[in-house]
């Protein structure tokens, strides 16, 4: 059965039909999905009752996966899922809902800020694939913003101004924004800032996009407050409603997005109810900017 695509939003995002992710996916179908992702940036697959192994198999079709261990604050032995999964749930290893003041919960609230996955790594992520196993009754939407459309809509003076700017990204910055600074020295050491271009070009489509994320804390050559005020303005521009698709989760939706051309965030939900989402992340292949040798 051939892949079908139905647009979900005037600017980007499409629903994909004609593929069953519980079965091995043929290489030509993988290629067709890659081509669709280069255009639509966010792809929604409905009713995919997949296991963790099936999610891993499908995800690996697009490249090597990121190991999420070592970038968060969960320790080995505390993790509910295979190390190639980011556990985007509110559950602990015993499947119990995290308490209100639980450290991992407060840390994960950073996902309410607009971001691009793994922008805090020197080689940032390509795709993320998020499977909704148990979804929130109310709230908990994931919103996506199209950074190509956001770039295109800038005036020429701003395009010229941002063209060669380089930002510093770290998990420390996004967490500080919400007043979370309960990090050990060892955790801080794994979160050392990395550099990313503010304007990046997609390797397949050639389109330029704004590479924004709440992980940004500095801009090279700018005073910090001026950099942050500017990044806030750009983020507000880039996330205006006409560039945003809000995904309302149904059980067993799988959403694939390209982190190179989008930002996303989760919206508030009732934290006393289970929300079990599992993310695999396809690693990128190149840095966007030269790293600081001294860092």
């Amino acid at each position, binding site marked *: 059965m051939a892949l079908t695509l139905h647009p979900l939003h005037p600017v980007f995002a499409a629903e994909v039909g004609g593929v069953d992710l519980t079965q091995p996916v043929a290489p030509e179908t993988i290629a067709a999905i890659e081509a669709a992702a280069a255009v639509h940036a966010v792809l929604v697959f409905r009713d995919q009752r997949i296991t963790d192994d099936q999610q891993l198999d499908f995800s690996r079709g697009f490249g090597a996966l990121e190991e999420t261990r070592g970038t968060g604050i969960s320790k080995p032995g505390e993790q509910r899922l295979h190390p190639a999964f980011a556990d985007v749930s509110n559950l602990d290893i015993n499947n119990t809902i995290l308490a209100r003041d639980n450290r991992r919960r*407060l840390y994960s609230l950073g996902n309410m800020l607009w971001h691009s996955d793994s922008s805090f790594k020197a080689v940032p992520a390509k795709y993320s694939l998020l499977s909704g196993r148990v979804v929130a009754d109310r709230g908990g939407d994931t919103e996506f913003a199209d950074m190509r459309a956001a770039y295109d809509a800038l005036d020429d003076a701003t395009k010229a101004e941002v063209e060669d700017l380089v930002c510093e990204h770290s998990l420390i910055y996004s967490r500080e924004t919400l*007043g*979370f600074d309960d990090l050990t020295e060892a955790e801080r050491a794994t979160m050392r800032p990395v550099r990313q271009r503010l304007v990046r070009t997609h390797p397949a489509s050639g389109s330029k996009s704004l590479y924004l994320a709440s992980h940004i*804390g500095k801009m090279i050559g700018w005073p910090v*407050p001026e950099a*942050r005020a500017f990044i*806030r*303005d750009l983020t507000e521009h880039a996330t205006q409603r006409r560039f945003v698709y809000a995904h309302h989760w149904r059980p067993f939706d799988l959403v694939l997005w390209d982190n190179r051309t989008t930002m996303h965030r989760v*919206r*508030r939900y009732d934290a006393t109810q289970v929300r079990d989402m599992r993310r695999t992340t396809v690693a990128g292949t190149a840095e966007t900017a030269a790293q600081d040798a001294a860092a």
Partner: protein
Amino acid sequence: MPISIRPLHPRPDGLPFVGEVTGIDVSRPLTGDEVAAIEAGMDRHAVLVVRDQPLTDEQQCVFSRNFGELEVTLIGQMTRPEDRRLASIELGDISNLDPKGGLRARDDGRRMYALGNRLWHSDASFRAVGAGYSLLSARVVPGRGGNTEFADMRAAYDALDNATKAEIEDLVTEHSIAFSRAQLGFDNYGPGNEDKIRPVRHRLVRTHPVTGRKSLYLSAHIGGIIGWPVPEALGFIRDLTEHATQPDFVHAHVWRVNDLVIWDNRTTMHRARRYNDLRDVRDLRRTSIKGAGPTFAQVLAAAE
């Protein structure tokens, strides 16, 4: 010519926001009726624009005192007299100029502090009694950019769903100048100013003393909600702020020289937009009126 007020920001709900006042010269003493007309206009529109009002600093202070006692500015209190450009610390120096009248350098500490004005805020919400009106007079304006945007916190409150209204009704927030500046990575206040960054408490929902309308009391100065974990509080405040500053509730004021804009800090937030401050002069002067009472029983907070 009598005072008349024309709405500048028509809204579908018919509740006015931002009016332009004509028929008044604020450099001259005002009659009681004129003051009452302006206050009534403020209660209705929350922001009033008066064009073509050339003012001296003294005239601005005299006019402002029609509406109450003047606030002393925080930055004035934190700055040594020889480092101030304006003689009176009742005048907020909303400019990019140093004491000698030159443009401030890119990494100037005062410039870093002032960048906090680009975050949505309500004046002096970091004080136990926040400001009532603020009055901003434009003496020199930049060629491009530098608008001041206003957001209507009454409309923002009205548009919340009932569940959210119930959730926030009795919430109490903590405000400090240090919280807004920390968002931008600024924390250099100089010695002896610790008492000025100590957090104060305010209700999140406040009621206007005259109109009885409820509004959201939001501000970039908020650093927490009493009884909530900090990251959860700040995530929620960001969501509320985004809701409250959506385009329907926002009016952008494009400055002309000699504009005087008056806003009610009890029912609005505002922010400055970017301009080329390393090239263009922007010289605005602000007076603020002391609010009439705390939104939260400070006595109670102090007793804890």
